[in-house]
């Protein structure tokens, strides 16, 4: 008898707990509960002022010439913030963006609580929890060739190409690692340029991001291909991750439609 009613009791207890929470906080911010909306994210890849194309020669700020033949990276944990300091983390937001796959540069964050958001932040890479456990499906499937091992975790950013300055011409940058001292997980919050993102059921806002490959090699740390052409995690990966945090992503513009 007790067992029979136990689930019901649990449900009631949970429901009342949930209601209590709602009374305390959300009601004040959102007097009328409204339906969630979406945010489109579109990413352009560039090398400085030029659009990125495979096997085209670009020049770093330090003057090294290079081409790109493979460029892909993870973005995760998209979080939208309001002026009052509250924020919403989009659950299970893991995306593998691949220059070779144009469709991967456009995705939609769904079921975001309605509201006016003034900041957007996200992680370049995969959070440490998912590096060591959890479902490896979709973007996180090891079959995507972005996974080392449970011990080493995911490759967060992969850029491969060539450079005449590199000792054997090869450029192989596999940025990853989630353990100290070589943790390369970086969260960024590129400015929305003062634009507020209106999330509503009947609206279709979009953020256009720009990822600049030149910024992998310049910023807090200058990367020269003569000495650092080949990175598989480790201390050099940390230097590039710090560059990524500093200015790899910018918001080009926001559509509030």
């Amino acid at each position, binding site marked *: 008898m007790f067992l029979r009613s136990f689930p019901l009791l649990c449900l009631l207890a949970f429901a009342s707990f949930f209601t209590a929470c709602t009374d305390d906080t959300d009601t004040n911010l959102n007097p009328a509960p409204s339906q969630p909306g979406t945010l489109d994210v579109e990413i352009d890849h560039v090398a400085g002022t030029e659009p990125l194309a*495979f*096997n085209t020669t670009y020049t770093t700020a330090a003057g090294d010439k290079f081409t790109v*033949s*493979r460029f892909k990276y993870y973005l995760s944990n998209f979080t939208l913030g309001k002026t009052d300091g509250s924020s919403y983390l989009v659950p299970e937001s893991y995306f593998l963006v691949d220059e*070779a796959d144009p469709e991967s540069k456009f995705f939609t964050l769904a079921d975001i609580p309605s509201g006016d958001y003034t900041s957007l932040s996200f992680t370049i890479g995969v959070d440490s929890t998912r590096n060591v456990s959890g479902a490896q*499906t979709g973007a996180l*499937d*090891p*079959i*995507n*060739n972005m*996974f*080392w*091992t449970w011990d080493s975790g995911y490759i967060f950013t992969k850029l*491969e*190409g*060539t450079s005449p300055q590199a*000792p*054997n*011409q*090869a*450029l*192989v940058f*596999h940025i990853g690692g989630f353990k100290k001292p*070589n943790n390369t997980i970086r969260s960024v919050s590129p400015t929305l340029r003062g634009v507020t993102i209106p999330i509503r059921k009947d609206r279709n806002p979009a953020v256009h991001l720009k990822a600049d490959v030149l910024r992998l090699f310049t910023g807090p740390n200058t990367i020269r291909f003569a000495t650092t052409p*080949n990175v*598989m*995690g*480790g*201390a050099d990966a940390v230097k590039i991750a710090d560059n990524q945090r500093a200015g790899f992503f910018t918001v080009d513009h926001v559509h509030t439609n």
Partner: protein
Amino acid sequence: MGFSSFWRCWLVVAAVSALLSGCEPDPPSPTPFSATPYDLQIPGGLPARPAIPADNLLTVEGVALGRMLFYEPRLSRNNTLSCGSCHQQSKAFTDGRARALGVDGQQHQRSTMSLANVLWEFSLNWDGAARSLEDQARLPLENPVEMHQTLGEGVRKLQQTDLYPPLFEKAFGSRLITEANLLKALAQFERTLLSANSRYDRYLRREADLTRDEQMGALLFRSHPGEVGGIFVRGAACHHCHLETTGLFSSPEFFNNGLDAAFADTGRGGITGQVADQGKFRAPSLRNIALTAPYMHDGRFQTLEDVVDHYNEHVERASPFLDPNLLLSNTPNGTKLDLTAKEKQQLIAFLRTLTDSAFIKDPRFSNPFQL
């Protein structure tokens, strides 16, 4: 308990159907079709979730039919070749030839590919010409330098037999053979060809040992040469294209592995039309690699020693859009991979541990017409 609730459920269904049929004029009552779900056991060491299309789930009847079709020579122009002629189980579903030989004695441009664990491959054929096994099967059946017969003609031949119409009925609910159902059955059989019981798999499961040389070879296989944290690591970096972490030893991507400076076969570029894809091919699975000689898309290398020599010493560095991982060296600033002779032997010793002798003898995969 489970049984009684099953019957209760059945009674409800029966009662509802009786009611419904009572309300309607007598419809023609077709025999309800249902085939038996095939319980595909995915061995540990392979990806857990195979990509099986929802409109072609495996059934016992479909797989059994697919196996017969796989070994059915009437699917070739002069009834002499079946899929199994070039995809021979004893050679991990390859043929031992540098390039495949078609029904008219013509030589194919490319080498026969193994079918082990093919259900996880995103793209098929050396150039990714097909994206599903259902689509892929039509290509060798109809290609003039392979089996050289339209699928429609194959269907017509099989429809005239006593053997096949009842088997198609069991698998798909109709004695009328269709091209789509023929391709589906072949794909179902191919999806059962799982190989994950090599000595290396048993080593990972702690059921077998590898020699020291084999273990060193495995380490070289998955090590990226270069300085890491102040230590210079030696490696062959095979794992960038032959992913061992998935258990498949293949990749969803395409690579130029430095065979030629100019391409006789444009490979992936022939499919995408992109200049940067010219000379790129799939990195096929290395499972059972010791059984699938000769090697490369055109079978140019006879032995694994030749293959390792290529990657170690003969990469065509001027090849357009060469994969940068092929430029790596175990010598700082070196221009060749520079494994030692001993390391090359270790690498090959490891590759030989990927042979799955149970797979090539599994009676479920053999020719059902030769029992």
